[in-house]
Structure formats: structure tokens, C-alpha cells
């Protein structure tokens, strides 16, 4: 399946045909809007990040990181995006476009957008596969690649 995903994804890119996109939704471990200037309260690699205020967000970032690395390795041609659910100006139009491009109905698209607006979510071609809590990394990756493989075969 990995090889299928890799080669099919590459073909899709090479022919300029339908591309496949996975959006990994997760909150950055820092404050966003509202705090404005004081927003950098993150954990690692940010200024003054010693305390564990955002430990729960950090855990999700780490898990998304493992999914990201696995997908990068097994389907390198995949358009892989990591986005924050608070980035409303980009995220929801992107899901709408991808879902409609891949044939999802309006109702399903709206439901997908609603589910994607979560502290953590996985979206394939506009369809939200996981929202809120994620199973083990391997299961997420297999599900994404399985769905992708079926779409490429169709």
C-alpha cells in the first residue's frame, strides 16, 4: 500500500491531475489572538518557555509530529499541511475547497468543517477522518493511506 500511495501520489502530481491533501489540525503550544503582543507563551524553542502551561497542547503536537513523519516517509508526494484550528481564515475555506473538489456534498462538507475545528483533527481531501482525540499513530497513518489508496484506485 505504501508503494501504491507513493507512486500514485507522484503520478497525480506529475500529471497535474487531482492532488491529495492531508491537513493535520493541531493547536500550536502558544497563545494566538487576543493576547496579541504577549502571545509567545509556548513551550520549547520559544522565548520564556520554561513552564508547562501548554503541556497538553505539546503532547498533541508531538503525536501529530509522529503522524507527519510517518506520512512523509510513506507517501512523500502527498500534500501535507499542519494547521492550527484557530487559523480560521485559511483552514475552513481550504477544507471547503478540497471537499468540494473531491465530490463531497454540501452537508457532508459542512459537517467535515465542523469536525475539523478541533484541538486535534486529521482531514483527507476535505473529509475529516478524526476529530478531538486520535487513536494510535499507526492506526491513523494506515487509515489515511488506506483511504488514499482507494481513491487512487477509483
Amino acid at each position, binding site marked *: 500500500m505504501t508503494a501504491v500511495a507513493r507512486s500514485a501520489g507522484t503520478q497525480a502530481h506529475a500529471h497535474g491531475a487531482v492532488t491529495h491533501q492531508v491537513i493535520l489540525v493541531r493547536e500550536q503550544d502558544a497563545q494566538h*489572538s487576543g493576547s496579541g503582543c504577549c502571545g509567545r507563551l509556548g513551550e520549547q524553542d520559544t522565548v520564556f518557555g520554561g513552564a508547562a502551561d501548554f503541556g497538553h497542547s505539546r503532547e498533541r503536537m508531538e503525536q501529530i509530529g509522529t503522524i507527519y513523519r510517518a506520512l512523509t516517509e510513506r507517501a512523500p508526494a502527498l500534500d501535507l499541511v499542519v494547521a492550527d484550528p484557530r487559523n480560521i481564515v485559511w483552514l475552513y475555506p481550504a477544507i471547503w475547497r478540497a471537499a468540494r473538489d473531491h465530490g463531497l456534498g454540501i452537508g457532508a462538507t459542512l459537517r467535515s468543517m465542523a469536525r475539523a475545528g478541533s484541538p486535534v483533527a486529521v482531514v483527507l481531501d476535505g473529509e475529516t477522518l478524526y476529530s478531538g482525540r486520535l487513536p494510535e499513530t499507526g492506526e491513523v497513518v494506515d487509515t489515511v493511506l488506506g483511504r488514499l489508496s482507494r481513491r487512487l484506485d477509483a
Partner: protein
Amino acid sequence: MPAFLLIVITLVAFYFGYRFYSRYLAEKVYALDPNFVTPAHELRDGVDFVPTHKHVLLGHHFTSVAGAAPIVGPAIAVYWGWVPALVWVVLGTVFAAGVHDFGSIVVSARNRGQNIGTLSGKVVSARASTLFLLIIFFLLTLVNAVFGVVMAILFQKNPGAVIPALIVIPIAVFIGQWAYRYGRSIIIPSIIGLLLLYAAIPVGQAYPITVDGLAAAVGLSVRTTWIILIFAYTWIASRLPVWVLLQPRDYINGQQLIVALVLIFAGVLVGWDTIAAPAFNEVAPNSPNWFPYLFITIACGAISGFHCLVASGTTSKQIGNETEARFVGYGGALGEGSLALAAILACTAGLGATGDWNAAYADFGAASGGALGHFVTGTGHFLSNLGIPATLGATFAAVVVITFAGTTMDTGVRLQRYILEEISELAGFKALVGRVNLLTTLAVLIPLALALVPGGDSASGKGFAFGRLWTLFGTTNQLTAGLALSIIGVWVLARNRNPLAAIIPLVFLLFMTTWALVLNLGEFFADGDWLLLVMDAAIFVLAAWLIVEAFTAFNRERGARRQTRPANR
């Protein structure tokens, strides 16, 4: 002049700034290389280092830098007339903020995504890291003080905003439980929460809440009572886990920001209001002159030093192609400038349409103490152009600023707690280390003391202390920007390129900042404002320190250039 024209003029200036000046920066100053392997690729881990589409990254970057500060500064600064305020916003954004935000991303990306605190030690000098820490300490102290006063002013003048502002708290707590405890989607509940918040606005107007009785009972002024209550709330809020209140409120704030911006600009376009304020206002006796105070009154919205923390904290780690730093960094600065433009429009065209602008901005005291009220009233008028009753619109604007300011204080006190702990460790004073309640209390008491310094109109006519606090906040913000511009300038010089794009705004900011600090020293001494005098003197020392560090670093780099060929660092 039609307000619409101001939008057109500003956007055209921003367009040309982006089209030509940012291209000059990209090609000649930062020499962006499309083949440079950015940290997002080199250290790609899917966690912190993630190559990210430029549109996604602009969204992250902009929502991280946007807040209430670009509203407050311009709302005060139109006191000197709309032309000086607008010109500084436009020129500052194009020639200073753009250079600063864009350059911070580039320099950080060229140093494996290191943040500006680390870079100050590496590029300028080892002492600069300590300087950075101290500047941030003063900056946060002043941020917390000014936003405490901002909220108090708005609650006092808009008692109808109290219920909607309070309603946000249980809504956010519910959303936090829903999303973080039970792992559910957050976007729909946050939209419902936003609608409930808006529904609470007429309720708040029907049942305005004041603390007059409490203030009379304890023998304090109404404003002082509000300030103390707000800081008490902040102490509690900053001790809660972030997922309980801070993070879920972030979603509501993000949506409010978009809604408010759309409504203000739509109101201007529909209403076709004219600018009722004078182009240049005659300064009242004993009120400060626009030169140099304009340049520290509008910090965020023209140039804000805190943006370098965002640029180097996360954005630089996610730039997929170095050439995209132009779009994200310069584009983010233009977005912040647009927020400042919205505030200028509300306080000139919007406010002017509702009453006597000259009375509202009679002197600097009235301008600074009433700035938020003027913004709120002006926004209310713009919303009335869209069929929303002006009083409801005004309360809507007050709630936007209050929730932003509340989040800022919550975040600021947390951050101040860490800095106090870090400073106490550096000073070898172990008694504070790990004592969270004590650190939080200190982080609240220091700005509270500043917020309560003298409460009424001062004899010199400079007005309510808020204006003074705000200009002090502006000086520290500009010093942070100055430190980042020093890093950028030295880095550019080390590559044998012309560093004037960074040096000119650096010199300009340091000159205006130190000049204003010196003028303030005299004022505070004459008025016997001892706490503000000490604060001002301390910031002046930091400014002098920064000037020495920057001068030394540039000289060192010039010397190195003479002796050796430029080396890639």
C-alpha cells in the same frame, strides 16, 4: 475628506510598499535565496519545524500578532490630528515594521530558527540577552498596567458591557471542558458562544452593572475599584490551567477580531462618513507635542517590538521557502497597520459623526483617558451605518476590546511570573523559585501599583496617568524593536550588504524613545510622580545600554569587514 479615501490611500501605500520596498529588502538587503534549506526542511519534525504554505503561515502569524494595542495607540494619537497619526502608521508600517518583522523571520531562519533572545546574545553581545530579559520585564509590567486601566475605563464608561464581558467566562469554561476534557470539536461551540455573547449585549444594556456602591462603601474611586477587581480576576485567571479559560477564549477572540474588522470597514464603506477631526490639531497648553510622543504613542500599528518574538518563535521554523518570508513577515506587518487604520477611522470619522470631536480631544488628558471610549463610540457609529443601533454597536466594540485586554493580562501575568522567576534565579535569589502563588502575586502587584498611580487629572495638564503609562509602554515596545533591528542590521552588515534599511528605523526609534524618556523625566520630577519617575529612569538606562550595545556591535562588524572577507554565518 471621505473616510473611504483614507482606506484607499493607505491600501495604495501598502501596496506600493509591498510591491517595491519589500522586494528591495528581499533582493538587496536580505538577499533571499529560493534554494536555501530553511530550518523547516533541515530540522523537519512535524512538530515545531514544519514546511508550511505561505497562506497558512500568514494566518498563523497575523492572528498571533494582532491584539488590542494597535487600537489604543492610534485612538490616543489622533489627538495631534489625523494626518500625523496616519502618516506614522503608513510610513512606520512600510519602512519600519515591515523591515523588522520580515527581517526577524529571515535572521532567525538563517540561524536554525533561534529566537530573538538567543540571537541577541549571539549576534549583538552576551550582555544583550540580559538586556532583552530586562526590557521584556518592563514591557510586560507596563502591558499589564495599561490593559488593567483600559478595562477599568471601559467598564466604567460602558456599564452595559459588564454582563457580556462576564458571560464570556462561563462560555469559555464550558467550551474548554467540552473540547479539552471530552475531546469534542470546538469550532461550532465557539461560534455559538460568540452568538451568545452578542445576544448578551442587549441584556447588558438593559441591566448595566456599576460598582459605584462598592466604591463608595470602601472609599475608593469607581475607576480604582474596577482596577483592583480586574487585577484580582487576573490573579485567579492566570492560576488556572490554560485549557480552562485562556485557550477556549482564544477561539472566540479570533472570531471577534475578524467580525469587528469586517464590520468597521463595511460601516465606513456603507456610511460614506467624512473625517470630522482636524488634519493637524492645535496642541493644548501643557499637553505633549506630537514630536516625539507620536512615535511612542503608536507602537503596535506602526512598529511593535513584540512581533519579533512571534517571527522568531514559531514563524521562522515553518517557512518552507525563504522567499516566502517576504509575504508572511511584510504581509503580517501590513495587516497590523490595517488594524491601526481601523482605529484611526473610528476615532475621527466615526466619533466625529456622533458629536463634538474637539471636546472629546480637548487636551492630551482627555485624548488618552477617553481614547477607548472614543474608539467604542466611533465603532458604534460605523455599525449604525449597517442598521445596528449605535449604542449596541458601541457595547459590541467595548466587549471586543475588553475580552482582548483580559486575555492579554492573563497571558502577560503568566509570562511575567516566568520572567520574575528567571531574574530571581539569575540574581541568586532562590526564595522565589518555584513559589507560584508568590510569583503570581508579585506579577500582579507591580503593574497594579503602576495602574493606580495618580488617578486624576494632573496639575500640569498632561492628564490622567493612563496617557503617561501608555507612552512608557510605547518606549519599551520600541526598545524591543530596536534590539531586533540591531540584530538585523549587524547580520546584514556582516554579509557585506547595505544595512541602512534596518539602521535608519533603528536610529529613528532610539532617538524618539530616548528623547521622550528625557522629557518624561522632567515632567515626572516636576509633578512628583516618583514611581513613574523611577520606571522612566530605569527604561532610560536600558535605552542607553541598548544604544551602546548596538553601536559597539556595528563598529565591531565594520572592523571585521575591513580585515576579512565576509563570512557566511
